[in-house]
């Protein structure tokens, strides 16, 4: 059985989830309004061909919630999405500020999780290395990749939110 998580960690994490989800939906709205890319489900094929990954949170599912594995998956998933958001930079001058903020918020949340894993003594000695990021070769691929990556991130955060509530 793992050590209980401090209340301030859970409250701050839940606040960070809401903060990231808020700017994520702003960005999705802007991508829809600006580029008429409003349906992530129409981009799945493109996602496959570009190799846009989906991070797993199997250790956080309500049926098999495993605290250490959940925290570890949460951390590596956040690092994955931070890398993806970084690969999307240059998406467009209008969206760049919101994208930069989102990426910083994701990176900061990853640090919050990592910090807590260190406090619990369950942090691996070395941070996970960044897996290869897709190469976007056109403006459309960057925009469509952005819609897909951010919609995957929103789903990832929803699972994380439920898990954190369970852990609280």
């Amino acid at each position: 059985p793992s050590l209980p998580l401090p209340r301030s960690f859970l409250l701050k994490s839940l606040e960070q989830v809401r903060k990231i989800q808020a700017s994520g939906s702003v960005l999705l709205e802007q991508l829809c309004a600006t580029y008429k890319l409003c349906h992530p489900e129409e981009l799945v094929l493109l996602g496959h061909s570009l190799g846009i990954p989906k991070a797993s949170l199997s250790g956080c599912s309500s049926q098999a919630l495993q605290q250490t594995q959940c925290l570890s998956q949460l951390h590596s998933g956040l690092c994955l999405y931070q890398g993806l958001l970084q690969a999307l930079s240059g998406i467009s001058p209008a969206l760049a500020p919101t994208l930069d903020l989102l990426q910083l918020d994701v990176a900061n949340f990853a640090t919050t999780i990592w910090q807590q894993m260190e406090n619990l003594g369950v942090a691996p000695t070395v941070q996970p290395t960044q897996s290869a990021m897709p190469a976007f070769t056109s403006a459309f691929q960057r925009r469509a990749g952005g819609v897909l990556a951010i919609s995957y991130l929103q789903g990832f955060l929803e699972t994380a939110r439920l898990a954190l509530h369970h852990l609280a």
Partner: protein
Amino acid sequence: ESCGHIEISPPVVRLGDPVLASCTISPNCSKLDQQAKILWRLQDEPIQPGDRQHHLPDGTQESLITLPHLNYTQAFLFCLVPWEDSVQLLDQAELHAGYPPASPSNLSCLMHLTTNSLVCQWEPGPETHLPTSFILKSFRSRADCQYQGDTIPDCVAKKRQNNCSIPRKNLLLYQYMAIWVQAENMLGSSESPKLCLDPMDVVKLEPPMLQALDIGPDVVSHQPGCLWLSWKPWKPSEYMEQECELRYQPQLKGANWTLVFHLPSSKDQFELCGLHQAPVYTLQMRCIRSSLPGFWSPWSPGLQLRPT
């Protein structure tokens, strides 16, 4: 693995003109079956098939479509394929439509002595719906501006601004320059008629400083209906010889202005008499460069004075 690429030509058209587009799926796109029916969507309009779809010699699938009249000034064109019970986007192209720029008109320039810059403004003409650059071009010249001297660096107007300010270091004062505006966008360019001017002949002059003079009781000639004034020219234009006009009016409904012409640009003491129509008079002054070309300054703010 290019699973869909749109080419449009030309990328920018006149509003209402046709646009031809092609979407190609290369044979090495593993995810798609090679017989996939390529579809098209313009903005949020319903999905439509292409005009023609065929295989190119190298196995590439190509669909061609002509949009007869592009009535959007900006729009996205999507190339799609059916997928399970929905569709999948393969590529997206941005279309632009508008008009070539008309010739900018009403070009006028004023030399600002406070910023030492020549500020020109113009009317851009009808909306082109396209990013259009306005550049103020000029070259040094002689009186009739036929002679083409050194070119002066371009003055590029900021977006959506129809004025530009040529800095002092690019100006040769007291010499003529030819100056015009060039408008340009993806569909063409146009030029305004040329102006021929010496910056110092188009100075934006400000009115003089008009002040009441409080004359000591002993000096006052005890003549009723008089008042004393002093004025000096607007500081930045002090070096310019100027000629001024004074106007005054009793504070009565519908009163007329009385004008005093050909006054010097600065006066330590000026007596004005015969002011019997009202207890309070409003006075204003304006000046103009004398014996050389120039514009009148606006009238100075009204000065309310009580004659003796």
